[in-house]
């Protein structure tokens, strides 16, 4: 059955492929990712389209209206998901926001995991004063509610994409750091690391050949978890008026439309919430599957 010479990594991938929920999650995430890529490449739903009014305000989803086309002429059209208070197409804004979510999710996840893994390895493997200092930093950051850090850092950076990304990455790395540190401390007492020391392998060779490859389960799971957390926190920041400015995003849409809801204009909030829910749900399913597939205690 099993191919000979199959690495644990390939074995994990094989296990992941057999996980139906995981693969369903991956399909949804992949679809969202392709859409995000298309928007990024300017194939559809450009920023201009997402910010230009196309008709009267608050057209209901599915209603007929006079749509203003790109050349300024008007044509009869049927609305897909309505328009917002300024007459912009909600469907276009929703799709454009997928790109925003992916940009924030991917950048924050990669940054926080990279910083967390590097510092976790240094702290866990070398110990001593460096470990004490980093652990102190971890405790200091961790002893204040995350949302306060995120709010104050993004406030300091000013409203906008960079502020959100820096604020989220600067708080998320600590979770990665602490888990990686614990795993490194466990790994370095294992006999295969002692064996490497016994024949005089260098510290760097031990870190890169013995330790980092055995952290892959943590790396995948945290990439996925931090992506979700970043997307959700962007919504909260934008809702508080500290998030993205000048461009649509799910958070901005939910924030803008909270007053509309009282007037019975439900579609902007609902659309953003549903897409957020679907993406987060799919990512959660993928995270669970990654955890199962790459956990070294379950593969082997």
């Amino acid at each position, binding site marked *: 059955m099993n191919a000979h010479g199959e690495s644990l*990594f390939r074995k994990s991938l094989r296990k992941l492929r057999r996980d139906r929920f995981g693969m369903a999650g991956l399909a949804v995430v992949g679809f969202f990712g392709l859409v995000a890529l298309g928007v990024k490449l300017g194939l559809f739903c450009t920023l201009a389209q997402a910010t230009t009014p196309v008709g009267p305000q608050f057209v209901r989803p599915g209603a007929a209206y006079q749509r203003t086309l790109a050349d300024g002429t008007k044509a009869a059209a049927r609305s897909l998901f309505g328009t917002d208070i300024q007459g912009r197409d909600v469907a276009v804004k929703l799709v454009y926001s997928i790109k925003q979510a992916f940009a924030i999710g991917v950048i924050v996840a990669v940054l926080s995991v990279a910083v967390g893994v590097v510092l976790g390895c240094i702290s866990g493997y070398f110990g001593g004063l460096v470990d004490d200092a980093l652990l102190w930093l971890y405790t200091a950051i961790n002893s204040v509610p995350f949302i306060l850090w995120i709010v104050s850092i993004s406030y300091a950076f000013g409203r906008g994409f960079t502020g959100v990304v820096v604020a989220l990455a600067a708080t998320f790395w600590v979770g990665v750091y602490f888990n990686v540190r614990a795993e490194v401390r466990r790994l370095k007492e294992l*006999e*295969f690391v002692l*064996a490497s020391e*016994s024949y*005089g392998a260098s510290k760097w060779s031990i870190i890169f050949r013995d330790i980092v490859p*055995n952290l892959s389960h943590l790396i995948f799971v945290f990439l996925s978890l931090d992506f979700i957390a970043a997307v959700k926190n962007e919504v909260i920041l934008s809702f508080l008026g500290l998030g993205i400015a000048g461009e649509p995003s799910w958070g901005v849409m939910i924030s803008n439309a909270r007053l509309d809801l009282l007037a019975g204009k439900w579609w902007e909030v609902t659309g953003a919430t549903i897409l957020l829910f679907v993406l987060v749900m799919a990512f959660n399913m993928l995270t669970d599957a990654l955890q199962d597939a790459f956990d070294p205690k379950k*593969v082997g």
Partner: protein
Amino acid sequence: MSGAPKPLLAVRGLKKHFPVRGGLLKKVVGWVYAVDGVSFTLEEGDTLGLVGESGCGKSTLGRTLMRLYEPTEGAIEFQGRDIARASAAELMPARREMAMIFQDPYASLNPRMTVSDIVTAPMSAHGVGTPAERREKASEILQVVGLRAQAASRYPHEFSGGQRQRIGIARALILNPKLVIADEPVSALDVSIRAQVVNLMMRLKERFKLTYVFIAHDLSIVEYISSHVAVMYLGRVMEKAAAKTLYASPKHPYTQALISANPVPDPARRAQKQVLKGEIPSPMHPPSGCVFHTRCPLAEERCRAEAPALRDVDKTGTDEHLVACHLVKD
């Protein structure tokens, strides 16, 4: 001893104490006296069996000899040079000449590396050979330890415990070391596999002219493989002699108790079984005087006050028989 060849390994007064930290500021609140003044010599070609109950410090001793732990005190003379205080760079030549076999074959091989990369890692660490030469050496050494050359391209999880231990042995031997420290190499294996691995180790010893330090708690295996045996208790050597002498006429009360507790397929001998009372005292608070006095059936006042030195009680003049006990007559 004059005129005798220099021992391959001479250990003098070796101590390894681990600090116990507690409180908010992680102050040292006590010490674990894991290895507390061990001395012995090992001639080239001999096999020294190190036995003792779990927690007696035998594994710590093995790891300290390999400088996986920093010795607290004492000297480790390997090939005439003290390596107890050598820096990592100064240790490199010695690290080529000594190798370790580990206890747990499931933890001692990196699960993310191929068997070929695992067994040739010591070559890479010492810059020996080109990648092609290393691959060739890997398939050669795998066959020597009884695996197929094709095993090289596989991963550890595709092998059984016994096969994994063979991979660990191949890794230990790939640089042709002089001294191999085997830390309970068979105690994690199925009983049916143990004899195979021990026999393999004995064949390899002949073939590669190896010297072993064989750490174990199984007295029968130690008797089988060792030329000399040292019995440890609470970080100290209680008795050391040629294996035959030690098993035939143990002098120390602790050794006598250990040997009588070892099951022997002889109903007549069952009656003489001596059972030790009590637990091993904590190595954080070793007893005064002779560390064994709390459990010794023969202990006297002197044993509680004064620690006995390890002295030679051999009468035949052939080999030393060292015992650390006040009550054994010269």
